[in-house]
């Protein structure tokens, strides 16, 4: 018999499936074009949820890394890595869609404003974390945890630093206030993305925990043979 926790992932995906179909058709067929940006504005419905997902996963990873350092918990280590991987994918989506949107509306893919630079640097920290977890030697998990915590601490600092830095540069582009029907399209899309992401996150975290348990079993087997 399956454990209850194993039902979580299928349930997440089941809940996400109709939402994905609904929000995609709503974005392209039933949401009016934005007045100044036109069709290019549709990318908003993909770009912003992915940005939020990236931030959310970075925070989850940072908190899990802290727990991992304090309690020496392997589950927390698995959660931190899984969250960072999903956050990395979200960030990749942001870094790909952002310049496309910027090119269409501002005429330039990169204006270097505080939010852009902060997101890009956060994404770099997540990438560094993944590199360290995958290629670092066996004891680097705790170092990676420190990196995740530092990454989380850095986000407000970077934002502030870039704002200071930008005082010597002109700023461009402000996203206008959104009408309610746009938000009505936005929320189902965000929910769909979050459900799918948490499903993937749960699968990966569970897989990582299993890897740890398998290692333990291997060591026990060797011990019993010796």
């Amino acid at each position, binding site marked *: 018999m399956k454990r209850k926790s194993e039902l979580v992932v299928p349930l997440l995906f089941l809940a996400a499936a109709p939402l994905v179909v609904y929000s995609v058709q709503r974005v392209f067929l039933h949401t009016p074009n934005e007045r100044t940006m036109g069709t290019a504005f549709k990318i908003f419905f993909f770009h912003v949820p992915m940005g939020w997902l990236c931030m959310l996963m970075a925070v989850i990873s940072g908190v899990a890394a802290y727990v991992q350092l304090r309690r020496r918990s392997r589950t927390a280590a698995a959660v931190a890595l899984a969250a960072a991987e999903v956050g990395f994918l979200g960030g990749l989506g942001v870094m790909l869609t952002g310049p496309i949107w910027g090119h269409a509306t501002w005429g330039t893919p990169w204006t270097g404003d505080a939010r852009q630079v902060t997101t890009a640097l956060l994404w770099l920290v997540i990438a560094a974390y993944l590199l360290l977890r995958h290629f670092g030697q*066996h004891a680097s998990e*705790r*170092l990676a945890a420190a990196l995740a915590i530092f990454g989380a601490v850095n986000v407000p600092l970077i934002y502030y630093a870039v704002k200071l830095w930008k005082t010597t540069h002109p700023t461009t582009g402000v996203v206008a206030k959104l009408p309610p029907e746009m938000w009505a399209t936005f929320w189902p899309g965000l929910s769909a993305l979050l459900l799918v992401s948490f499903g993937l996150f749960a699968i990966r975290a569970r897989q990582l925990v299993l890897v740890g348990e398998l290692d*333990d079993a291997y060591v026990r087997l060797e011990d019993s043979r010796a």
Partner: protein
Amino acid sequence: MLHLARVRLLRQSLLLLRSELRQELRDLELVLTSTFFTLVVLGMFYLSFAALEKKHTLPAVPGLLWLTVAFVGTITLTRAFDREREADTLRALLAAPVERLAIYVAKAGSTLLVLLVCCALLVPGLASMFPAGQVFWDMPLETAALVVLGCLGYVAIGTLFAAGLAGGGGKNMLLAVILYPVTTPVLMFALVTTRALLDKNPNLPSYLGQMAALDVILLGVGALLFEPVLVGAAPARSAQAARQHRREALRAAGRQEPR
């Protein structure tokens, strides 16, 4: 009690710092390699950017300064902890009856000193190579404060990660990979402040104060995380590590590894 503990920490830090410096003074390895590297980078920058007009060097000089600090800092930190690993003294240091925080303070202190020696070449070098850097001569005190604060912030983070990487097999390529994204805020603050210095901005003291505040935050986080990171990085305790040890032992014994 708290006061006593603080005095003890300070004494231990000074003791360890003195031992670091003594070790360095024996062969000057870190100072010589780092200053030579600084000169090489300066030379490369000169060859690349000597043709720039003054108005273009103004935004370039802060970047050149802090990029060099970032590069030199990485090689200094790598080498400082490589030395510990080669002699297997990091473990001895951890086993010694000293506060772990004192180890952090001593390592950060010695690295900071090496970086400052490099900056003593770097800043005059930039000042004489690029017309925009003339301000460094005109405002020596502010320049010194800026360099010390910038290097301190960099070292506060760098020591933590270099120490963490020094524990195991030593994949130092990773140090640059993780250090540059994490040190961006401090380098960015330093860039902004340097720019303000070059512009003779009246708000310069406020910028310097913000850098000092950032340094305090970074030192705090570094000190807080140093022990958990380093103690975890020393002896292998995880199952994965145990498995690796076992495999190596099996291989050494010439037995077939089970699948």
